[in-house]
């Protein structure tokens, strides 16, 4: 589904991704862990098409297409979704209008009919329940004045609505208390399916107690320097990331 090969990307003069390899097959959940500043968000942004990064080498294919050649919205149409580490506040942009525009843009791009108002509302209420979100959310502006936890839940709510093929969750767990974490994890688990893959970026093993990953990767200095199963996350929990420099694994 997603094949990233030798991906290199810079911001300004600085090379952040330094030859990154990652393959995600349908239905798999991959956890990416790593120290602050190692390039996890950069990977998420480059894959979803954010401006400001220059890809200087390597490739990324998604659903058989050259992902890096596509506009951000085209990537979303193909089924890519990014749950932002820092969701953006959009004052004055009504949530319902936003969700409808997003869903119908994707449906249209896939040659499906746009949802009418009634079916849309029914669908949206069903998804709100999964995330234990109040309907008053629909009347508010997107993320404007939301608490940190509300913003994160809102990201997963959007994911539930848009039903992507591959979701990248960038530190969705940070800043969540244990109850909110459970709600978010339940929301994510409800979306697990043999066709849907996820890349879960996290700092803490904690989230992985709730969302069981198939693979765990350590990203450091712009590369995946170790991969393993769930037990790698447990190991990291005890060792921390201090060993990375000590072992001199990254350039």
């Amino acid at each position: 589904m997603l094949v990233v090969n030798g991906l290199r990307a810079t911001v300004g003069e600085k090379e952040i991704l330094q030859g990154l390899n990652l393959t995600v097959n349908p239905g798999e959940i991959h956890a990416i862990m790593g120290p602050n500043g190692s390039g996890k968000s950069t990977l998420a942004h480059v894959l979803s098409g954010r401006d400001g990064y220059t890809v200087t080498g390597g490739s990324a294919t998604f659903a058989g297409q050259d992902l890096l050649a596509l506009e951000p919205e085209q990537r979303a149409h193909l089924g890519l979704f990014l749950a932002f580490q820092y969701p953006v506040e959009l004052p004055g942009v009504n949530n319902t209008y936003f969700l409808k525009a997003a869903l119908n843009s994707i449906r249209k791009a896939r040659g499906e009919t746009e949802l009418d108002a009634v079916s849309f509302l029914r669908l949206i209420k069903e998804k709100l329940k999964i995330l234990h979100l109040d309907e008053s959310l629909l009347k508010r502006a997107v993320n404007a004045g939301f608490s940190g936890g509300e913003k994160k839940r809102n990201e997963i709510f959007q994911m539930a609505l848009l039903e992507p093929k591959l979701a990248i969750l960038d530190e969705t767990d940070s800043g969540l208390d244990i109850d909110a974490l459970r709600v978010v994890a339940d929301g994510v688990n409800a979306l697990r399916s043999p066709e849907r893959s996820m890349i879960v970026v996290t700092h803490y093993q904690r989230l992985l107690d709730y969302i069981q990953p198939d693979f765990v990767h350590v990203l450091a200095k712009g590369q995946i320097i170790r991969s393993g199963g769930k037990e790698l996350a447990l190991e990291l929990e005890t060792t921390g990331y201090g060993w990375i420099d000590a072992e001199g694994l990254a350039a």
Partner: protein
Amino acid sequence: MTDHALMSWLPQLAPAAPAWLATLQAAARAQVQTQIAAPDAEAWRYTSLNHLLEQGFVPIDETITALQPDDLDEVLIPGLASRRVVFVNGRYAPELSATEALPPGVHLDSLRDVLAHDPDAVRVLLTAEPATVPLFMALNLAGLDDGLVLRLDRAAILAQPLELIHLSIGLDQPSVAQPHHLIVLGDGAQATLVERYVSLGAAVYCTNAVIEIQLGRDAVLTHERLQTESQNAFHLSGLSLRQDANSRYQSVNLGLGSRWSRTELLTQFCAAHAECDLRGLYLAGDDQRIDYHLDVNHAVPNCTSRETFKGIIYGKGRAVFDGRVVVAKDAQKSDAAMSNQNLLLSPQAEIDTKPQLEINADDVRCSHGTTVGQIEPEKLFYLRSRGISAALARRMLCLGFADEIIHTLHSETLREHLSEQVGQRLESAPWD
């Protein structure tokens, strides 16, 4: 200087005019001449009059009678207001208006009528000082002809909004219309007025309207002004507001249409604890230019004013925001906050923004802030990452920016209508 192009905007003085009116109009004429000879450099710093003068506008003494009520359909906003007063090219059009069953204490007349039958009544309502008003208000006064006279007695309430429509139709010659409205709310009276400027067709014409408003003690007026004229129209409008104690004036000024427009808002607090809230949204694109000039006078203590204007400028559009708040020496405890935020969508778009506070008292709360920015890339990316096209995403962000003003309109119908209008305008906006 009598051959100046602006002098030709003036009709002949009516021979039957009462002496006081003749005196007033002569004073207004003199002010026009003074202003032409030595224009107020600050007031005209960003705007050249040439484009306006080149058009050769002349007043047309002609009442348009050919219109049928259903000709109005294309400019009406369904569900907005059941009562409306329509002016066609500056003249009251009773056959297009709907003013039945006004509540008790609400009096609605045309200025022509009142001038003909009870001219002295107009005399007390006209408060604009011809010798001190800005150029185009003086021109309007000098050419005083018709307008709306709306009077609310003490405690009278006009609960349903009244729509005041300026409908303009092009004539063979580029014409100028100069309606002059007088709105007077007695103590404790309340009303909502939706003032609209619309065009039928796309001819070149000019409107130079003045609206004088007096609010008695505790009176409340909600005033929404929607300028959506054709892209060939020239638009000038002047507001002169005087507020008595405890009165509240809240207005929204939307400038979406016309090729060249200038709006002057002059407000004056006459007694304590009055509040004045001026909000505005302007959209200037293509070759449009749109100017706002605010002159808010805190002449007495304990009054509050808010000036909140936002602009979206694209293509080769140009806008001017020139806002001035003056706090007099004795006007202690004045509270004023002015802000002007602008979104520039193209490199050629231009805004001149000049907020000024002139504070002569020492115990006041006054602030002003200005921003000029572009659409923020991270917001745009957020929307696009959800599958929304760049063009729609930009429009959504502009509408989000505009919403702070639009959502303050009194009715849902109007809010939806205006969002749609802004959205449509932005659909044609070039993005770079």
